[in-house]
């Protein structure tokens, strides 16, 4: 689910309602649960709970089959109840529904009434819980069960002195902590639910199959007469809130409070309990002091934290509070539940901790999946993750620590014993987070300090605030200054996953100072694609003009490269002028340059000053002997050197130049052309050298034998051989697997060269008859071609033409994404809005137009031109028709 993906959930950050419903039922004494539906639901949920809690989890199923979907599932449920009671003698049975039961419309309360009628002696309390899998997540399911329990339990309204404590899904260890706390404060309490024993039992001589711990119905009966209810959840809706029900039905006053994680939330809970007669024991005071002391001990390291927190809303809020009071910035906060109050409840804390440390960008998302969380984490440079073990795949991909918390923990043992509540739990959680940050620090700080202060590579950053709203639900703030490493992320050649970004190679450098035996520079073959080829040479002004043109049409253009066709540094004045022009126009662009490295020592500092962040050096060998076989001659400082002499000069300059660049934080890539029988034995050594020089990546390439070059008859290197070589070298450093060996005038993404569309036209030989000026609406994806289906167009380019010239007037947006079922029930509205957008045009140019829109366009008198052509050409042709 990227920002715009709302129908596909990729790697969910949530589970379904029945999961929560049965978990809550595990907190009731001598209670069993049965899921009314097909048996997979119960099997899957047992599997997931058992893995987390490392305990037996027994959930029955009514095992509905196809017949049940036709005739109803009452018989199965009745049988199921009878069998459970006979075999296990429970005191309570919770019947939770599933997607299946809810979809076929089972009336579970009625079935339960039937059961009691057929079994009048039955003393078992049977409680129905409506928990359709599609109606919410495990978070809501948990509270629905609790609500059903208080609704169905026999209540005793006699006033008592008890305090009801209602919690969401907290760990058994945290539950034990909470119970202990209440006891030590001297509070007479009823805890709903109590998972502490049933889902974290010990090993005794006899295994007891019926959950013997938990809150009994007898205790629950007194909830109606309690003096107060504290509900440790601030997100749950009124309809699912047991506290609200007790207040409305029995007049028990209640308050909703945060989970007591962090000193503020815990203080608040303790203060509340003191109101009801609680006495703070010395032990608790000491516990609090210890947590405060730990906060101080850790504060220097805490401040390094940029956390991603994900899970159920109450959990996320609790962890954010802990982070906030410790100076850890939760830059990504996410919950899988659709939760309206999520942003408003968590943002104040995030804002307060972020601003003083100049963190202007953070994201809060509800209804999130891990696909989205991962994107945000990369974007916002998270350095620690806090949440359940479903985040492990993201953590692994991004090489981050995952502080495992909450449910489920499937890849480690002891999920049921993780603590985060109270001063003690907060301390444990804080220690784990800080130790992760320290661990990362310990490995990197020497190198960072050395680079920053000794080499002076990094420069200070200024961040300015600008708010970018993403679909109204992901407020992410924009950042201004970007480092070379950041630029790598959007560089299609240096980053294997940067394929969506485009680059332009400006062919401004015709001359070369080294003759490689594999190279033949040709200037005019539009169909051939390899390094050294371009259709025309541009001067710096033309190159600048071309850049502006392409940038206007290709918003994903991130990189300007100089890749010949000769050597960029052999034509340094052109290179410098071109880059200066573009830099002035667009200071954020990434400059990238490739060179043979001969002139690198001379121009390295100039390149840095020009803002070049990425340099590719072709270094085929580190042995002059081998170099002598590869290079015919080297022109250096006015002399032509051949043989080993030339190769030695080239090599020395390459090494010195690369070192200078990497020392100054420039990202360097080494290109190596694999030449069978010449350098193939030595490539590994070249790669090792590149590593020594702190290069980022090496790119081992196949030789493209070019007719007319010295190596034209050289044996080909197969894909398999090249991959084997790359694999072999991968042990030393990162390898480029996605090189396309581009042209010197390539334009576009690596997979889609559009250079043909951007060759400067010498003249056009279209003889046009001047016509009246007309308006045209063009459906285009690329901005260059008529290449969009009419119905899919998000925007139209409006052109005017008299048949001779075609002028771009403006872009018009069509609201592509509907705003919910109310306004966008079907496509009719969308076509209507498209028609509104273009009704003043005399024709529409599109790749294709559907049947019904065609009719409607014709009805409006708008002509349809179905074509695939360059926009200008197509518009002129249309004007002439």
């Amino acid at each position, binding site marked *: 689910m990227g920002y715009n993906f709302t129908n596909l959930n*990729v790697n969910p950050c949530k589970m379904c*309602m029945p999961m929560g419903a049965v978990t809550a039922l595990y907190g009731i004494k001598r209670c069993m649960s049965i899921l009314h539906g*097909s048996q997979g639901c119960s099997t899957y949920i047992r599997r997931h709970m058992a893995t987390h809690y490392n305990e037996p989890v027994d959930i029955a199923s009514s*095992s509905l089959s196809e*017949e049940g979907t036709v005739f109803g599932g009452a018989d199965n449920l009745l*049988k199921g109840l009878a069998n459970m009671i006979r*075999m296990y003698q429970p005191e309570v049975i919770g019947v939770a529904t599933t997607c299946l039961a809810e979809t076929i419309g089972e009336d579970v309360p009625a079935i339960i009434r039937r059961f009691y009628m057929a079994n009048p002696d039955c003393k078992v309390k049977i409680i129905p819980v409506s928990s359709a899998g599609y109606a919410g997540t495990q978070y809501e399911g948990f509270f629905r069960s609790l609500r059903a329990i208080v609704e169905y339990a026999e209540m005793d309204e006699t006033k008592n002195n008890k305090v009801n404590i209602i919690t969401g899904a907290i760990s058994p260890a945290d539950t034990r902590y909470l119970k202990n706390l209440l006891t030590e404060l001297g509070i007479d309490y009823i805890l709903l639910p109590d998972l502490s024993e049933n889902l974290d039992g010990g090993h005794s001589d006899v295994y007891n199959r019926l959950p013997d711990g938990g809150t009994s119905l007898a205790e629950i009966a007194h909830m109606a007469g309690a003096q107060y209810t504290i509900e440790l959840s601030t997100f749950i809706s009124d309809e699912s809130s047991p506290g609200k029900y007790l207040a409305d039905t029995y007049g028990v006053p209640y308050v909703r409070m945060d989970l007591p994680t962090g000193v503020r939330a815990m203080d608040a809970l303790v203060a509340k309990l003191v109101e009801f007669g609680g006495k703070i024991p010395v032990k608790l005071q000491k516990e609090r002091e210890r947590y405060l002391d730990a906060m101080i001990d850790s504060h220097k390291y805490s401040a390094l934290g940029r956390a991603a927190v994900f899970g159920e809303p109450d959990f996320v809020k609790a962890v954010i509070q802990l982070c906030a009071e410790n100076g850890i910035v939760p830059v990504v906060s996410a919950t899988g539940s659709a939760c309206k109050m999520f942003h408003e409840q968590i943002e104040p804390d995030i804002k307060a901790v972020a601003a003083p440390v100049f963190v202007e960008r953070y994201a809060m998302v509800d209804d999130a999946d891990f696909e989205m969380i991962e994107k945000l984490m990369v974007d916002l440079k998270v350095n620690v993750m806090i949440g359940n073990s479903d985040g492990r795949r993201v953590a692994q991909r991004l090489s981050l620590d995952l502080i495992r918390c909450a449910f489920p923990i499937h890849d480690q043992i002891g999920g049921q014993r993780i603590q985060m509540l109270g001063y003690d739990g907060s301390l444990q959680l804080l220690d784990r987070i800080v130790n992760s940050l320290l661990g990362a620090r310990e490995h990197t700080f020497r190198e960072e300090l050395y680079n920053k202060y000794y080499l002076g590579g990094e420069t200070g950053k200024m961040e300015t605030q600008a708010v970018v709203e993403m679909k109204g639900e992901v407020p992410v703030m924009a950042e201004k200054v970007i480092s070379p490493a950041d630029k790598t992320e959007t560089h299609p050649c240096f980053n294997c996953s940067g394929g969506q970004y485009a680059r332009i190679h400006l062919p401004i450098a015709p001359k070369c100072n080294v003759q490689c035996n594999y190279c033949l520079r040709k200037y005019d073959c539009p169909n051939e694609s390899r390094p050294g080829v371009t259709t025309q040479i541009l001067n710096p002004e033309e190159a600048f003009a071309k850049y502006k043109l392409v940038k206007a049409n290709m918003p994903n253009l991130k990189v300007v490269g100089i890749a010949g066709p000769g050597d960029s540094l052999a034509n340094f004045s052109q290179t410098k002028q071109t880059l200066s022009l573009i830099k002035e126009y667009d200071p954020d662009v990434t400059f990238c340059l490739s060179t043979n490295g001969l002139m690198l020592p001379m121009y390295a500092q100039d390149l840095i000053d020009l803002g070049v962040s990425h340099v590719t050096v072709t270094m085929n060998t580190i042995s002059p002997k081998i170099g002598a076989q590869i290079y015919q001659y080297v022109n250096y400082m006015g002399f032509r050197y051949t043989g080993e002499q030339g190769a030695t000069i080239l090599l020395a300059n390459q090494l010195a130049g690369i070192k200078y660049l990497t020392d100054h934080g420039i990202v360097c890539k080494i290109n190596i052309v694999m030449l069978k029988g010449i350098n193939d034995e030595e490539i590994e050594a070249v790669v090792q050298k590149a590593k020594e020089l702190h290069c980022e990546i090496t790119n081992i390439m196949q030789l493209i034998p070019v007719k007319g070059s010295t190596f034209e008859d050289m044996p080909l290197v197969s894909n398999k051989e090249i991959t084997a070589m790359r694999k072999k070298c991968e042990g030393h450093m990162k390898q480029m697997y996605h090189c396309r060996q581009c042209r010197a005038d390539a334009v576009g993404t690596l997979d889609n060269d559009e250079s043909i569309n951007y060759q400067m036209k010498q003249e056009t030989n279209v003889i046009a008859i001047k016509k009246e000026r007309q308006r045209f609406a063009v459906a285009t994806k690329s901005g260059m071609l008529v290449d969009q289906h009419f119905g899919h167009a998000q925007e139209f380019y409006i052109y005017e033409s008299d048949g001779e010239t075609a002028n771009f007037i403006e872009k018009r947006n069509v609201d592509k994404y509907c705003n919910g079922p109310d306004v966008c029930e079907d496509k009719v509205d969308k076509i209507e809005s498209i028609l509104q957008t273009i009704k003043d045009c005399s024709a529409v140019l599109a790749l294709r137009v559907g049947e019904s829109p065609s009719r409607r366009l014709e009805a409006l008198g708008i002509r349809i031109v179905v074509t695939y052509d360059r926009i200008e050409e197509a518009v002129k042709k249309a004007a002439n028709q």
Partner: protein
Amino acid sequence: MNEREKILDKYSAKVFKNRKDHVVQFDNAGMPKEIAANSRSIPGLMSNRGCCYAGCKGVVLGPLRDVVVLTHGPIGCGFYSWGTRRNKAKSEDGKSYIQYCFSTDMQEADIVFGGEKKLRQAIEEAMELFNPSCIMICSTCPVGLIGDDINAVATWAEEKFNIKCVAYSCEGYKGVSQSAGHHIANNGLMKSIIGTGDAPLTKKYSVNILGEYNIGGDGWETERLLEKIGYEVVSIFTGDGSYEAIKNAHTANLNLVQCHRSINYIAEMMKTKYGIDWFKVNFIGIDETIRSLREIAAYFNDPTLIANTEKVIAEELEEVAEAREYYKEKLHGKTAAVFVGGSRSHHYQMLLADFGMKTIIAGYEFAHRDDYEGLEVRPNVKVDADSRNIEELTITPDDKYYHLSIDKERFDALKLTTELEYYKGMFKDMGDGTIAIDDFNHYETEKLLELFHPNIFYSGIKDKYMIQKSGTPSRQMHSYDYSGPYAGFKGAIKFASDTYMSLFTPAWQYITPPWRMQPTLEGKVGGAD
């Protein structure tokens, strides 16, 4: 009362009537036993069975690494079947979706107004994000009920994106267990994927491995052995399998069936359509691996191949000889219970026998009668309504690809001496006094532990902790507890060493199982009155 009667004793009359035919104890008479299987589970008794969706998406389709398997339904089913079987897959070509979970995450409104539109949009998004060459749609319970036409969506996706898109109506309520899902998955693969490719073979003798899901790397170990001998493995169904490989499956000479229960449909349909013979092989267990390898070589009857097979067997045996002796000495005489799947409980008995261990209890979650009693029982199996609801494809020979590898005479001769197109079932390998249970449930498992107290219990995660609470070591045979491979020669040693670890961990010394405290003999201490 014998043990069987004790197990059934507590049931109500109705339940007893049903369960008595699912519990079989072998007596000294050694008579062939009948068992009731593949019928509905009893509500409320906590069966270990999963659902149709689990069999289709979770078992058969899930391991296909280059397919976006999209769960059409509310979020739970997709989530719960996400990476749970720990089947492994390589991703050399960068296209592996095995770590992903895709779901349409249907909401209440989709249930009310239909989810087709959402499904289409989800496919568009999947194309934009991942651009797969194959998408498979698996539906969950509500989809069948609200009547979303997932086949129409699949056709639309194929036309729009020029990809392969197959829809599986594997709603959880279909059939009586995972088994229905296997059948539905088999049908879909047969109808839409197998036979659509035409990659040329590279070696003279080629095979498909059917019903190998690469749990803990079993598939890789099996493939390694076969390739070492000189076979080309065209495709594996479906562990570390791929759409790209499976579409060429029809070009192979022979099908090797590992898990009979989940994949026999494809083996039989491919025989009818393409003339490809199949063998029931078993690469779990050293002796069984040797038998399987020899039978395959005998099938092709090429002296070089037979020599290679013997050479590989000798090499592999030599490598494990020392370890095998060591573990045999340690494990000899230990008793085991094996409760898994629909084929594994048989396979693992053979492996346990390699080390002198005795299987005293065995059971299946979702097997059919032929898995217990052998293929010969098929004509006697009554087809009930639940099975009838699962489509049986009508298959006819393919004009273009039908090819026989050996002539009828040799086929008939081989059939007499090998497991060529025959599965003998589990019962024939079970000894006197042992017990077999179909669709075992929570209560019965507990009772078995009490009555038999096996030294180790091989089962799954759902009963693992209950077994351990009762003082018995357990190992998960669905996911191998992060371990594996257990297939082939080296795998057998890995299994033995894991079993050894489980049995002899010092922790057990501090635990007293309940039966150790019960007196087994009653009598008077000498001298006392």
